[in-house]
Every structure is written in structure tokens, then in C-alpha cells.
């Protein structure tokens, strides 16, 4: 080969090398520790505004075949529409991995899937549900915190002491109680909020809010109840 050809060839090889960005992607994690089971520790069923980051991270734990926590196992996270950081990690000495979750832009439930490889191949997985609130659900949350939660929520906060234990049975249902509330139609929920417990033959301890809340606020409370229901609320199939 003539020297000119060599020079051309070198140049041709060098130029593309200079143009390619050096990739910063970390090499994929690997581990030869295999867990038998992955469990959820904390952070499930959090409700936050669409697109926002959840207040608390989701923490999962890998256990070995003996049921004890397992350190150094590879856990990877994925979920449609979620931004997860980190997307994979090795479990810490207490067998746990914590992931920060940013919700997608569409109101509704999101599934976070955490998996870890099993000894015999294939993964063992766990699903964690998180809830994104749209405008209407946020209104419902605000309204229900002000008017409903004192009796419907057994948890007390510094700003609000729960009144649930002071009521006489039948006691109110928690808004997350999907087993009961999913069976009530939107129309019935609206009726019981607007006209009080006796409108559906229930306790008069639940007052009528027809003259206190607007129709939009009442619908928003129903939307919020549907959003946080556990098990999740399914739209009736025959709505059309």
C-alpha cells in the first residue's frame, strides 16, 4: 500500500472515533447470590399527584431459602410509565433495596415490578402498586381530608385526631376499603355523601353534605375513593 492510502485510511478511522460519544453507562450489575423470595417492606400504595415523586421510597427485601434476609442479591425494578432510580441494585446487608419512584403523567394505578433471579434460573418477582392522582382526585383528597377523614380514617395526625373510635357501630368504612366500597355504584356513593347515611339506610352519624359541598366536590370525593380503593376499583363493564 502506498503511504497516501495509509494516511487516508487512518483519517477515515480516526474521524468516526472522535465523533462517537464515550458512553457513560455503567456496566450491568451482576451477582451470584440468588434469593428464593422477594418481599415488600414499605412504600406501597402511596398516592401522589401525577408525574410527581413519591414522598417515600419503595423498599423490598430479598430472602434466602431459609427465610433469612440475603445480602448482595441483584434486584431490578421496572414499571410502565414510572421513572425508577436506581433501576437495579444489589441488596444491602439487611437484604433490602430501596428505589425512588416518580409517577407517570396519567392518573390511575401504576405497577412497580421488582425481581431477583432464582437459583434455578428465572426470576422471582413482586408487584407494588402506586397511585397517581389527577386534578379531580386531588380535589377529592383535599375535600375528604377536611370533611371526611376525621371519622373515616383511623389514623391520627398532629393536625387531626381520628374520631373513629368515638362513634357507635355501624362504623364508617375507610376510603381504601375496596372490598366494600367497590360494590357501591357511583350513584349510591354520591347519594350517601349528599343526603347522609340514612339515605341508604345507614347510620345518621354520616351527615348530609348536599348544602355544604358542590356537586363537583362530591364527584371529586367519589373519584378519590375510586383511586385509592384496595383492591383496585374496576370500571363496570356495561357502562356504555
Amino acid at each position, binding site marked *: 500500500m502506498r503511504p497516501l492510502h495509509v494516511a487516508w485510511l487512518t483519517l477515515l478511522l480516526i474521524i468516526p472515533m472522535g465523533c462517537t460519544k464515550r458512553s457513560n453507562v455503567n456496566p450491568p450489575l451482576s451477582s451470584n447470590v440468588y434469593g428464593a423470595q422477594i418481599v415488600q417492606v414499605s412504600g406501597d400504595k402511596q398516592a401522589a399527584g401525577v408525574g410527581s415523586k413519591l414522598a417515600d421510597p419503595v423498599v423490598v427485601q430479598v430472602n434466602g431459602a431459609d427465610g433469612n434476609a440475603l445480602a448482595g442479591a441483584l434486584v431490578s425494578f421496572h414499571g410502565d410509565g414510572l421513572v425508577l432510580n436506581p433501576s437495579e441494585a444489589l441488596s444491602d446487608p439487611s437484604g433490602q433495596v430501596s428505589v425512588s419512584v416518580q409517577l407517570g403523567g396519567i392518573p390511575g394505578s401504576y405497577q412497580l415490578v421488582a425481581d431477583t433471579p432464582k437459583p434455578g434460573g428465572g426470576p422471582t418477582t413482586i408487584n407494588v402498586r402506586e397511585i397517581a392522582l389527577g386534578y379531580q382526585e386531588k380535589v377529592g383528597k383535599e375535600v375528604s381530608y377536611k370533611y371526611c377523614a376525621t371519622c373515616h380514617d383511623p389514623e391520627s395526625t*398532629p393536625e387531626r385526631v381520628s*374520631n373513629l373510635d368515638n362513634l357507635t357501630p355501624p362504623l364508617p368504612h375507610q376510603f381504601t376499603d375496596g372490598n366494600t366500597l367497590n360494590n357501591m355504584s357511583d350513584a349510591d356513593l354520591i347519594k350517601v355523601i349528599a343526603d347522609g347515611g340514612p339515605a341508604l339506610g345507614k347510620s345518621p352519624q354520616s351527615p348530609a353534605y348536599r348544602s355544604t359541598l358542590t356537586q363537583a366536590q362530591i364527584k371529586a370525593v367519589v373519584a378519590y375513593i375510586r383511586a385509592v380503593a384496595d383492591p383496585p376499583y374496576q370500571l363496570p363493564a356495561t357502562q356504555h
Partner: protein
Amino acid sequence: MSLRNQFGGVCGFFVGTAPRRFASVSVLLAIVSAIAPTKDFFSQWRHYQKEYSHFIRTRPDAGRLQRRFESGIHQIWIPEQRVVDRCTTCHVALQEASLSDVRKEPFRPHPAIPHSLTEFGCVVCHHGQGAATTVQEAHYSTKAWEQPILPARYLESSCGQCHMDALEGTPQLNLGRRLLARYGCAHCHAITQPDGTLVAPVDEPPSLEHVAEKTTREWIFAWTKNPQAYAASATMPNYRFSDQEAADIASFLVAQSTPSDNSAKELPQSVASLPGSDTVQEGTSLYGTLFCASCHAIQNAAGNLVGGEMAPELTRAGNKVNPDWLRRWLRAPQGYDPKTRMPRYRFDEKQIALLSSFLLSKKDDDLLANVHLPASDAQSIARGKKLVSDYGCVACHRINGVNPPESFAPDLSRIGSKPLFQVGFLRGMPETLPDYIAGKIHDPRAFGPALKMPNFSLTDGQIEALTTALLAQTDRAVTMPPELVRSSPHPKYHPGGDAGRLMEDLRCQSCHAINGNGGDMAPDLTFEGSAVNRAWLLDFMKNPNTLRPALIRRMPKFNLSDAEIKGLSDYILSAYQASGFDSQALDLSTLNSEAATRGKQLFYSKYACQSCHIVDYKKDKGYVGPALAGVGDRLTPVWMYRWLKNPNALLSGTPMPNFSLSDDEARDLTAFLTTLKEHKKGGLK
């Protein structure tokens, strides 16, 4: 050589003779004129519309959806809003509520909001380029267009372009706006809101004109270095001063300090003069019974803050304050700082001694253990003065000999529309405005070590909220037609006369709102004169007992004199009246025992009032609303009647529902409530 020949041959074939020339030009023309329709035919929006019309065939209401679907480019044009939005060309199903289970874009219906699509279009809330018809141009930044779609997490900022008051559906925007005022952003940055008002800070940083009386140079040094090491809840930001700088600032602040009015006053006796051994224990329980925790917080053993956030945290107060200063302060806070929100309690000597002994015991021996400052000298003081002036300390604190700076920090009134070419992004950060604002709040000095903006101790959620509030400050918001801007007026109200001076002394409006002015910790007093009976009010002022046993925040006991109580009560009873509260509103003779019996039935059975209110402490347990035992002493019958008929009309936003009572029911309930008396002994006549 042969290549050139061949090329010539091919050219000759097309341009050889006139008909050939004509034919080839015609073909060329045909191709050129076919380009535009072809591009159009394969355009993104046509692809989506085709996909949509296939998709709706699978739906149960296919016929209806097909009839409502129109192909072609759609446009929402609202000239007065400068809106030309073609988003609905691809987002074809925004108004199809029956598709609410669909999660595939661009075929989702719009979630329920209070505005219609045709009223405001899309970009007013979502940003992006409305006129574009490709995904790339509409959603993302290009060279010609740098306003990308606003990420969903900051979407509430768009509501803030018109709505100045807190909305139920925008918790993040509301929080962000509260933080803008609470963290004192507006001391340095001017932020003009769309209604023309400036964001007003609510944090009221203390005056430092007499600071040497209150604390030591060592404490100022430690605080300046890291305010949160002293009090986790401190809103004072961290300026990341070096040891030398912090020492210079401390030297200057001590040197500029002048004696306050309090310094000339007699010193209250110290706890050492008290008989008895466990004064700290006694002081602790006094701190509790005086409800200091309504405003002040102290960290408990578990590290949680217990108490309110209106006033400074006291976890390590013993490290900070001079014991003499503290005792004078407890007697007359306004003698040290005329603008403090702390009321002047009429503490007796023993209470002052006990409280100060308790507060001085709240200390952390490690906090100042390693602070050893060299003696202050003139150079150090001069350097300190320059730092205080350079860093704009006077934007927040009053300091002798340094004037408040003018336009110290950038105006943020239009930060939400800041052109991206003016933004200096950090390497590696996403080049969008929300990321820039959030990044700047998170770590301002990362954008340049010479920047003066300090580091605020904020959580991710707080930064997200502040960014949301700032993104509402757009060009569009500034130029919004005034009739679209929703804000309620903020009247200034200060009570006048002798009673007004007393109320000022007691700082009533730190906790109570009156005529739209004041705090929200305690009940609104605007109509208190119509609501309560004189005898009850006199008694309550003398010995405030709580109506809400579940709350940790309570009205403190001010140790008022009988004359003060009478003067104040008479003022409240005459000045704070609602209209229409004359005797005509309710015929008192109808409040007889039969009515009371019917009322009791309504109270306990039909309306189950006892689930929220306690009438009989032995039997009832509800504590959502105030206890009603003794309410017949407290409230006037007319007030009860009017309140029962429509509570929200008397107190906007009360959680008490409007039960739509008939006149008779409201009268019967009133008759029952007036029978609930406690017949207290003692009190004023």
C-alpha cells in the same frame, strides 16, 4: 473518461430534442408537485387518526364515536388568549368520556377539570407549541421553539397563572406559594403576581440591632456556620461561610449592637431565689400548662419536633440566650423587639423564673464546645460589615449602620417564561426550565461559587412545590386579561383605641383572624360579639378553658387584670358584630321546654350530633367540633340558630356541614342547646 461520456449520453436522452425536453420537465414537475401531498399523506397526525378510527371500531359505542370523529386538521383558536392549538388533531378523543379506561396516547380523554377545552385550549396549561402538527415540534424544544410540554409534575403551576388563592385541586402550588412566603424568598427577590401584588414574606426574621444583649459571639458564629445544627426547623439558610467569615460576621454583629429598651429595665429575679429544689421540673410543667407549644416546638427524645412552627424552635435555647435577657424578654418581649409576634404575657416573677430555668436547661453541650474565637478586632469587624452588606443580610434583618439593599436579587416575576438561551445550565443536567429552577433551589452555588444565594434546607417535595409556584410566573400570566385573574382582596385591619392597644400588646392577631387579617391557629373573631354571651366571655378571658380537648394548641392564660378583661370584652361585644343579629331574627319565647325536648331528640337521633360534639362528658365522645357542654352559657340563641341554619355563611370554610335544617328544626335544636349550662362559680360580675 467513460463516465463522463455515459453521463453526457443520459443527459442527451432527456434534453436532446424539444418534445423530449418538454416531457422530462413535465415529469419533474409532476414529481415535485407530488411531494407535498405525499408528505401530507404519510404525516404523523394522519397516521394517528387512521389508528384511532380502527381502534374505535372495537369499542361498544363504535357508532357514536365514529359519528363524532372528523378527520383532518383540527384547531382551537382563541384570539384573546393568543391560542392557536392543533393538539386535538392527534389527541382526537379528549372529549370522549366513554374512553376513560383507555391509557394509550394520544387516544385518552382529558381527565375531569373545571375548564372546557374550547375555553382555554391546551397550551395555556400544558405549554408546548400549539400550532405544530408533529409530535417533535409540538412537544419538545427545537431551535425555533424552546417551550416544551410542561412535565405533569409541575402542571399545577398553570392554574397559578390566573388563580391567586389556594385551590382545592392544587396542593403543590399552594404549598409552593406558602413556602415562597415562609422561607423569605421575597425578602431578596421581587415577585409580582398576576394580580399585581407582590409576594409578601411571612417569616419576620428578628432584628439584630440589640443582638449582643441576647446571645454570644460564639453562638452567632455557630449559627451562621450552620443554622440547622442549632434548630432543625430553622428557616435561616446556610451561606456556607468559612470559619473566618463567620467569625468576622459575629464580631461585627456584636460590635454594632446597641442596648434595647429592655436593658434599662429592672431585672426579674432568677430561679436561684426560689425556694424548692426541682425548679426545672416545675418549669417544664409550667411550659406545658401555658401552652407554649402552640407556637414553639421542642425536639423530643425520639428526635421529633413537638409543637407549633409559628415561633422559634427551643430545643437548644439554653445554648443561645443570655439568662438576664431571657427573663427581661419573658416579661416584655416588645421591649426588645417591637415587631415580635410574641404576646406580652402578664407572667408573675415566679413564672418568669421557672420558665427561664426550664429554657436554660434546654441545651446541647456539644454545640459550642469547640467554638474558640480569637478576640474581636477592628479589622475583623470591618470585614464582617462588608460581608453583611455584600450578602444582603439586611434584606431580612435590621442591623445598625447597614442600609437595606435595593433590587438585591433578580426579579422573579416572569421566571416561568425565562428564555432558555439566557439560562446557564450545568453540564449533564436536562436543559429545561423546571430542571434549572429546581436545580438552582437545590444547590444554588453549584451554578457558580461566586453566587450569593444560600442553601436552603428543603426536601425534594418542597423544592418541587417551590418550582411549581415559580413556574406560574409566566409572561402569559402577566398579560392575562384582568377579568380572568381570580384573587380575593387582602384588607388590612388593626383594632383601634385602648382595646386595640391591648390587643396589640397581647398579639391577638398572631393566632386569631379578625376581618380577614391575622393567623389561623385560633377561632376567627370577626363576629365574636354576635356569637358569645358577655358573662361567658368575661369568665373565659380570666380563665381560658378549652372547648376542644383533643387539640394541643390552646388559648394561653394572659393573667389579665379585671379592668383589662372588662375593657376588652366590651370592645369585642360591640365591635365584632355580624349584620342581621337583632332580636327579630329569632323569637326567643319559642325556645320553651317542649321545643328543647324535640331538639334533644333531633340532636341525638336524627342528626347524631354527639358523634362530633360532646354535650355530656360521661356519655358523649365525639371531638371533631367544639364541646357543647355549657354552650348555653357561651353562645347567644340567635347565633346558634343562624349557625345551625348555615354555618358557612358565618364562618367561611368551616368543617361543620350545613344540614339544610327547617326553621322549626333549627329552633328546636337551639332550644335544646340553650338548656346546656354549666353554672360556673366565681368569675367577674
